[in-house]
């Protein structure tokens, strides 16, 4: 039985503050970066980025909030958002001029009048000097004829929406070596080069080391400013306990970052400040923390053994660390295509558990503290990934399942037995693969030794595969009108209309051609982005620790890391599989309709063809029901996509296929025309590797059997399976055992990742209000199951009550 640790009053108070603070925009960073960029037009590339960072470290106001033990802010008020004009900018001018950030439907922001004025007064400068604007100039010429194809997220302009993000630096190096040592190492290299002369490519290396020395300096300066602030506050403090605490924090902050950490608290503080510094530098986007329990385990053991720390105090520190991780958020372009992660989150994924480099269970007491923090504080941020393997302790399984019941899908469960071989397949040494972490959303990556760009570069790296079906059936024209309300003709390959194809195989091959054609364009555009970003947006603060860079004297953006890859994620594999399945079954095999009828129905968004749509939805056997004749198409789609991605190369190394949508399956659905699988225009696309919503009618086991139909080790960039379950069927310890058995079976048969979506009472309430959208929501009580929407209101209320009780 899981015992939840107590939550201290301090943690409760800070959680309440977190929940009740309305995020606002803070221009402190913006102002400093603007002034720096305007005053330093002579600087370019890596030196510009390094000096810009150091300038922030020297001048950004330091802020320690009441009661904090773990400190650090990139803004001047609690839970505010910084702004990063050097990455993408035009959107904010548009929104401040024509809209109101506080009127947003989701994630509104307070923007003070003086801040708005300042931003608009400096707009002219940034409109010409941001990454997005610069890259638009470099978009391959031939692509313009293809923009609007419905498959790719590249358009004629405004192509950069995010920084690279989605990576994990080597936190161990910052903790155990410190930036003092890193700086010395860089300076020694520079001295050696000066002695030998800057011959060959050493001039490039020299600038790299110089930049590393500058950012190392910045890290130390910034941390010492926090030490001074803690000391200042201690002087003003009347509470003797808090005063002592502040003095202790000041002592620690003065020492760490320059020197190796000595205590558990040192190490937690060091992780947070390094993480936050990377945000401050501009990389706040799925910036991941890696194997936090592994970094902290030895400090915990040593402090406990020395009597410096109690488990209760360690829990409080982890709780406060999590509350700090929950705090950073980023005001982004308010555009449906970019609101993939609502809820003021920055996707700072944390990894726990798994095996160590020798393949042994790596669970330690900190693993439990971290799960306890999630399960008790019920924060949706930071997201957590738990690595599972054959020897994961029972106690950890139990705590993880109880946590997921409370915290809704946290942690995700990742299987070492599939992920490690997938990483080895992609070229990683076994020991390094065993040390993997999850980054961004669910992407497996080396922990501190890989530059994986799994979420893409400056543009989310997703491909909408359903677009390939639409282009293949409509002679290369995406039927969805663009923002101007017009359909742009011939953006894809002209291979014919659905009714032109003589055989099913001919049509299937046309889908393959469209997929491969646009994967090539996608890779080309992303690779081009990288070649531009390498020049204007190098990342010395990242490169200072990621293994390989200091050894090679090369920035991560130029291939310095030990391991390199570029990731991609497919959206809508389930829909493509289903479209092919429907076309084969209904048109070619059973002749339930003609190709012309199906074509007309899809082009009419099913308007006037409801009968045909009903036949397709209800009378065609579907992918997701453990029927091989249907499941073969998901296998085919996955293979065509993965082969095309995995055989592509970027400037640094190979590409890596993935299949995880975050919430982009919904967002991309808004911009996708109706499809032959019965989907209407604007409806969500299928989620991760799952079948089309509502088409897996044979229950969860059949669905798992179906998605196990293809080799997930082809998806080195991660897969996502959302399993929706009703909590009353999972009550108590017995329910937990069954849940664990489902997961273990899925993993051992080749499943990579699984997250549980235990249907909440909120979902049931929504289903009550919008029954059509939840037609297939099954609820279970002892020996009985029913469609929720079908039972009477009173019974529905009762089920909602039971659901609330069961969790």
């Amino acid at each position, binding site marked *: 039985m899981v015992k939840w640790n107590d939550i201290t009053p301090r943690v409760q108070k800070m959680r309440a503050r977190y929940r009740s603070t309305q995020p606002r925009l803070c221009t402190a960073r913006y102002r400093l970066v603007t002034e720096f960029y305007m005053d330093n037009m002579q600087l370019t590339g890596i030196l510009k980025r390094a000096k810009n960072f150091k300038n922030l470290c020297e001048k950004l106001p330091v802020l320690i909030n009441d009661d904090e033990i773990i400190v650090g802010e990139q803004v001047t008020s609690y839970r505010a958002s910084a702004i990063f004009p050097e990455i993408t900018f035009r959107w904010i001018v548009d929104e401040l001029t024509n809209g109101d950030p506080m009127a947003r439907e989701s994630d509104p922001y307070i923007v003070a009048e003086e801040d708005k004025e300042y931003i608009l007064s400096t707009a002219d400068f940034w409109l010409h000097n941001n990454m997005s604007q610069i890259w638009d100039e470099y978009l391959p010429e031939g692509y313009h004829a293809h923009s609007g194809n419905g498959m790719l997220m590249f358009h004629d302009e405004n192509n950069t929406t995010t920084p690279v993000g989605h990576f994990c630096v080597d936190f161990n190096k910052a903790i155990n070596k410190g930036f003092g040592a890193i700086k010395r190492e860089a300076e020694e290299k520079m001295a050696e080069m000066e002695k030998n002369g800057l011959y060959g490519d050493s001039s490039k290396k020299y600038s790299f080391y110089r930049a590393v020395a500058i950012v190392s300096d910045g890290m130390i300066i910034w941390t010492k400013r926090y030490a001074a602030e803690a000391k200042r506050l201690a002087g003003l403090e009347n509470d003797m306990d808090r005063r002592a605490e502040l003095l202790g924090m000041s002592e620690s902050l003065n020492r760490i970052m320059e020197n190796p950490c000595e205590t558990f608290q040192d190490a937690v503080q060091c992780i947070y400040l390094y993480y936050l510094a990377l945000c401050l530098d501009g990389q706040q986007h799925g910036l991941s923390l890696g194997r936090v329990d592994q970094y902290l385990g030895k400090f915990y053991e040593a402090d406990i053994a020395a009597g410096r720390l109690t488990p209760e105090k360690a829990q409080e520190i982890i709780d406060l660390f999590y509350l700090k991780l929950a705090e950073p958020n980023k005001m982004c372009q308010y555009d449906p295509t970019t609101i993939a992660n609502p809820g003021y989150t920055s996707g700072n994924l944390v990894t726990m558990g798994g095996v160590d480099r020798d393949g042994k269970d790596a669970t330690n007491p900190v693993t439990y503290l971290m799960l306890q923090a999630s399960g008790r504080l019920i924060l949706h941020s930071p997201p957590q990934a738990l690595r599972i393997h054959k020897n994961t302790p029972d106690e950890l399984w139990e705590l993880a399942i109880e946590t997921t019941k409370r915290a809704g899908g946290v942690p995700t469960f990742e299987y070492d037995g599939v992920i490690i071989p997938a990483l080895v397949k992609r070229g990683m040494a076994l020991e390094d693969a065993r040390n993997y972490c999850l980054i961004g959303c669910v992407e497996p990556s080396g922990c501190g030794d890989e530059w994986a760009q799994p979420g893409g570069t400056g543009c989310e790296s997703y491909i909408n595969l359903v677009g390939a079906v639409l282009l293949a059936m409509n002679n290369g024209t995406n039927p969805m009108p663009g923002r101007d309300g017009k359909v742009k003709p011939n953006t894809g390959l002209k291979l014919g209309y659905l009714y032109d194809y003589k055989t099913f195989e001919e049509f299937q091959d046309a889908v393959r051609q469209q997929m491969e054609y646009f994967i090539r364009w996608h890779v080309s555009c992303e690779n081009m982005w990288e070649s531009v970003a390498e020049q204007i947006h190098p990342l010395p603060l990242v490169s200072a620790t990621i293994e390989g860079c200091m050894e090679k004297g090369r920035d991560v953006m130029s291939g310095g890391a030990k391991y390199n890859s570029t990731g991609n994620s497919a959206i809508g594999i389930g829909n493509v599989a289903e479209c092919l399945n429907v076309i084969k079954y209904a048109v070619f095999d059973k002749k339930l309709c003609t190709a012309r009828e199906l074509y007309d129905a899809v082009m009419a968004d099913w308007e006037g063809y409801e009968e045909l749509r009903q036949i397709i939805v209800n009378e065609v056997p579907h992918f997701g029901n453990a029927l091989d004749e249907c499941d073969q198409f998901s296998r085919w789609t996955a293979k065509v996509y993965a082969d095309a991605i995995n055989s592509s190369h970027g400037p640094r190394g190979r590409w890596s296929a993935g299949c995880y949508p975050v919430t982009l399956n919904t967002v991309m659905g808004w911009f996708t025309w109706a499809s032959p699988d019965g989907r209407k225009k604007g409806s969500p696309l299928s989620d991760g590797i799952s079948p089309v919503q509502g088409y897996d009618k044979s229950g969860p086991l*059949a669905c798992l059997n179906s998605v196990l139909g293809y080799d997930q080790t082809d998806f080195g960039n991660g897969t996502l399976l959302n399993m929706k379950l009703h909590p009353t069927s999972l009550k108590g310890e017995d329910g937990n055992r069954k849940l664990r058995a489902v997961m273990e079976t899925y993993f051992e048969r080749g499943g990579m990742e699984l997250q549980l979506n235990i249907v909440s009472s909120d979902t049931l309430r929504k289903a009550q209000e919008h029954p059509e959208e939840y037609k297939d929501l099954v609820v279970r009580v002892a020996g*009985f199951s029913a469609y929720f929407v079908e039972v009477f209101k009173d019974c529905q209320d009762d089920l909602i009550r039971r659901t609330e009780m069961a969790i």
Partner: protein
Amino acid sequence: MSETVRGRIYDIQGFSVQDGPGIRTTVFLKGCPLRCPWCHSPESQLFTPQLSWISMRCIGTKMCDSRCVTSCPKQAIELGGTRLDSASGEELQMVHVKRDVCDDCGECAAACHPHALYICGEEYTVDEVMKKILADRSFFEHSGGGATVSGGEALCQPEFTLELLKRLKAEGIHTALDTTGYASWEVVERVIPYTDLFLYDLKHMDSKKHRETVGVPNEPILENALRLAECGAKFQIRIPVIPMFNDSVENIEATADFCLKLGEAVEVVQLLPYHNLGVSKHLRISDEKVAEAMPPSDEKMQSFKEIFTRKGIKATIH
């Protein structure tokens, strides 16, 4: 044998987590000699296939051009009530099945593309059922689960049930039989070697009350239970706690005493509180109103559980 024996089945459910230990796949056979008023699967009672209707699936006669109405050779389908479609904001015209005229021929179901009208109860061979169960096998192995044969009353299709259980055992799959216990001993006896666990219902200890409410006396049920216990069978006893029927302390005490007689054979007693979620399912196959009651309180269920635990019998509330 297995090619020819066919069973009439109304559902096969994977991830069935409450019909015996572990993760199970449950096969629901159609037809039952009992008529429990609280039955939450009313479609399981008749042996014959039945026309069923799910209102939520109906897209309205305007959309489908009343295909069910026009396809019915008996004119058994007429226009019925309406339903507000929250997506379109339209009032959908639905239909009503005249049950006294309908002979469950299924013509309308074949015409109804959204499957709002469908025939409940299909014939399967043992092979077909085995194929579905075997697909889920890896999930049983991890969880200590298996297959459950349920109903209706599975022993009313003895040849099919026996053959299915045999085949499951031959595959090394754990088997459970969910039964009312109302069958002849000759039938019960044959399945013993192939049944690892009996999920056995005890509804009332007073035969008169039993007969009055569910239509059959309880003697064969109790007798079979005792004989099964003698033969070394294992039980999960299930007691549906139904207000105004069997929820008196006396009856629960008597049931517990009977369980004591079964001795070691009883692994656990499950007390299943009445719920009214099955009421909506009645309307799929019938116009008749069914009686509804308030579910028993948590306190009451706890007190019943204590009656068992005091007597040294392991009991759970589901």
